[in-house]
């Protein structure tokens, strides 16, 4: 009746929401010391004993000396360890996690091996919460300066770890401070091993379960799973959609498949005096019927039948034509919550109805929560109602009951050297030379890409990333700089020809071509703007200055009338409008001109070209900056930039590396 106490204490909180226990403890892990067999002198059985403790826990037996001897015999026979030269035969020998893995997998046949590098307290807490004790590599007496040793973690609080220490006669549930444990655990590089159930949970008869992500709903009946064929069948049985428990796929391995429920029963409710009856036919058109009596109104109400109760004077007529059905108690699968302490149970107790009238309480809140019942509606009854619809109170459901269903399978998770674990799934661990085991694009032999990362693990980022490129100006090369490809740098310019075009992009047109000796220099149109000096071109090397050019706001005498920017051309200057959009948690920042700066979550700026050109070239720089805290990070590449002028977005190599730049190639600064 230990669970009565638990209920009195723990289930006081059911009605007030969830209970987050600070201490996770597995109270039912049987202990075995590593001696006997052998003696304590140079006994090396800590590893096999720790594995035995787990094997016994999952196989549900109490580990004895004979079990440890059998295990050692097996280890010797398999050649996994050899007896020590100067010790007793059953003193065993040193072992590592791999040996223990072999024991769990092949001796106890608990499942397949999986490796990961969860080595923090959350990992331990989560495993314990799932009912899994964890083997850890530590030291004798949890003393980091002592000899290497295996223990089994069976509990954890905010300040202490609770272990089974096979190295002591009285090694069960020993407490050590977390500081001491952490220091000791670190000496083994946080070696740990856990037999992890796949989360398959047992459910009592009457439960409705549905695998997450699947449409199929099953009824647990006679400890088998019956598939409820469709919604119409579900509704015809008056199952409650709110009673469906979301479960993991592994639960389907827990129960044998019973078949499908494909018929829609026809039901009517009758009342004779204070007695209620359920009239039921397998289908509407079936000729056979069954008449079942509810033990009480509470029993009827637990069924939640949306039917009109028909009052009749006598049931004899119906009894004559129908078979007598089973007396109906609380409906299976219903969570029964007494409104007060009843029958010796604490006030907080909750039962699940099963086997037509059996009420099973839960050992603790964690079990209740583990099985997913905390998400379901409770059916509240008083003591009289409880008694009226209950056949008997069954055994309490423990976490062990919940976790280990039928032929449940287990997976073994081994945590040893984090360096040997391929964290990012790229096929290489740190031990294999992966220089960034959190980045699947980095591993030995990977192709180097332009991302500011050492992809091929040769010690250099973005090395060797040069590509040939061709523009109208000539042949060039792209270089990867700061994780971005730069513009095409021309190294072989296009040959300048006499065609009125600046072929080699040096700012000069048809330069180097011979002009006939009898031609006056004043008759040569050097800038190919259609005007020679003799024709009034006041600057024959600038196509923006000639008698036919309109005056524009550029501080030049464009139309060669000896006046600069006349006619109010600067009154309404040309401008550029750009918008910058950053992710929700970032602000956009834009800098332009000499010291102009704007920022905002979504930014649109209009900048006069004259201001834009204060830098000598038409460009601005921008960035996306984290808000909380301000400037805790920045990344210009996440910005979306659009402008009303032709523009190029580049990495900020002129002003400040880490910023983006917008250049306007069609704008000219004068």
């Amino acid at each position: 009746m230990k669970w009565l106490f638990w209920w009195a204490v723990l289930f006081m909180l059911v009605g007030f929401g969830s209970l987050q226990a600070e201490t996770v403890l597995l109270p039912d892990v049987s202990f075995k010391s590593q001696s006997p067999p052998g003696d304590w002198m140079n006994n090396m059985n800590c590893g096999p004993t720790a594995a035995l403790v787990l094997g016994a826990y999952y196989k549900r037996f109490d580990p004895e000396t004979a079990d440890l001897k059998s295990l050692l015999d097996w280890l010797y026979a398999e050649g996994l360890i050899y007896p020590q030269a100067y010790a007793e035969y059953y003193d065993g020998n040193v072992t590592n996690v791999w040996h223990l893995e072999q024991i769990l997998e092949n001796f106890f046949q608990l499942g397949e091996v999986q490796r990961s590098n969860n080595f923090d307290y959350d990992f331990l807490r989560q495993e314990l919460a799932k009912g899994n004790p964890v083997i850890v590599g530590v030291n004798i007496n949890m003393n980091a300066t002592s000899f290497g040793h295996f223990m089994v973690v069976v509990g954890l609080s905010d300040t202490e770890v609770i272990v089974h220490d096979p190295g002591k006669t009285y090694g069960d549930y020993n407490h050590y401070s977390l500081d001491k444990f952490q220091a000791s655990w670190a000496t083994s590089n946080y070696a740990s091993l856990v037999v992890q159930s796949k989360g398959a949970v047992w459910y009592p008869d009457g439960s409705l379960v549905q695998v997450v992500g699947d449409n199929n709903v099953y009824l647990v009946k006679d400890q088998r799973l019956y598939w409820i064929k469709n919604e119409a069948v579900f509704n015809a049985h008056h199952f409650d959609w709110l009673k469906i428990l979301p479960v993991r796929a592994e639960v389907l391995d827990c129960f044998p498949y019973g078949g499908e429920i494909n018929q829609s029963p026809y039901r009517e409710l009758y009342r004779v005096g204070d007695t209620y009856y359920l009239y039921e036919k397998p289908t509407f058109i079936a000729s056979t019927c069954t008449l079942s009596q509810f033990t009480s109104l509470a029993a009827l109400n637990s069924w939640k039948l949306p039917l009109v109760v028909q009052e009749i004077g006598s049931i004899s007529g119906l009894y004559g034509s129908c078979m007598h059905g089973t007396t109906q108690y609380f409906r299976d699968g219903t969570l029964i919550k007494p409104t007060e302490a009843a029958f010796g149970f604490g006030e907080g107790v909750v039962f699940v109805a099963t086997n037509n009238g059996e009420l099973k309480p839960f050992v603790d809140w964690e079990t209740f929560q583990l099985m997913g019942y905390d998400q379901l509606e409770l059916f509240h009854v008083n003591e009289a109602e409880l008694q009226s619809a209950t056949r008997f109170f069954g055994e309490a459901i423990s976490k062990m009951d919940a976790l280990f269903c039928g032929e449940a399978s287990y997976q073994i998770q081994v945590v040893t050297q984090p360096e040997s674990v391929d964290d990012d799934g790229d096929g290489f661990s740190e031990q294999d030379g992966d220089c960034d085991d959190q980045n699947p694009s980095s591993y030995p032999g990977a192709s180097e890409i332009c991302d500011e990362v050492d992809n091929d693990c040769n010690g250099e980022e973005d090395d060797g990333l040069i590509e040939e490129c061709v523009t109208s100006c000539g042949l060039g090369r792209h270089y990867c700089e700061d994780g971005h490809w730069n513009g095409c740098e021309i190294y072989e310019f296009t040959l300048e020809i006499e065609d009125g075009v600046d072929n080699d992009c040096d700012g000069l047109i048809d330069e180097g071509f011979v002009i006939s000796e009898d031609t006056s220099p004043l008759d040569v149109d050097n800038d190919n703007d259609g005007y020679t000096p003799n024709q009034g071109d006041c600057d024959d090397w600038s196509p923006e200055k000639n008698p036919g050019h309109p005056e524009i706001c550029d501080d030049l005498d464009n139309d060669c009338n000896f006046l600069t920017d006349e006619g109010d051309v600067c009154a309404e200057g040309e401008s550029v409008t750009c918008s910058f959009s950053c992710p929700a948690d970032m602000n956009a920042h834009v800098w332009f001109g000499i010291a102009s700066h704007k920022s905002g979550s979504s930014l649109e700026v209009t900048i006069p070209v004259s201001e834009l050109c204060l830098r000598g070239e038409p460009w601005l720089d921008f960035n996306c900056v984290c808000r909380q805290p301000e400037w805790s990070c920045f990344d210009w590449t996440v910005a979306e930039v659009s402008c009303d002028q032709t523009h190029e977005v580049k990495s900020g190599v002129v002003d400040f590396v880490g910023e983006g730049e917008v250049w306007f190639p069609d704008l000219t600064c004068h």
Partner: protein
Amino acid sequence: MRVILFLTLLIVSSACTVPVKKITYQPQAEIDLSKEVFEEELVPIQKPLELVDAEKENWSFQVPVGWSLEEKQIATELPREAQRQLLVKNTDKDIILGGFLPDDYYLEPVTQELNVEKYTESFIAINLLVYEGEVDFYDLSWDEFFADFYPEVKEFNSRELLGQPDLKAVVVTATDGVWLGSQRIFVHVEDRFYDLSLHYKNNEVNVAEEAFRNFITNFQF
């Protein structure tokens, strides 16, 4: 019995120069060296270990020529742990003293192919743990010391150290927990406790015990 054998060996001061005597100790209820009964038999002459002076942490002692001396890193400064640790061994490679093997001990676990670049399975080692500073070790009794640091110890007996009769030393005779080290002795000097243990594997026991004996005899506690 191995502990007792070791202790009796400690009093044989001429082991390096005369044929070594193997001594069997007949245990008695109260340890009184003057009353111990020895049976002697001759064992083959072995070449004595050549020793060299060594110093570490202001201690001077002797180790066999060619042996390595390692001041092991103390992982933390947590209470109830040794403050200093010295490991003397006849190899430069790593060795395993406890029941836990690190994962890289075998290159190939299935075939148990030893990682010979890092570890060796043939060694003699002397492990020295020093407890000091945390509590008033000067007045701490043996009972208190073991209760604090070695709770698995249930019985112990006093011993006289060879060549250092004034020192307080004990050997543990009963535990209810695992007890590693083929020989192990505790020494209390002023405000320090010393835990000295001998470990060997695939090596001659006589050589190992001689090395341990020499180490203790020459150690300036």
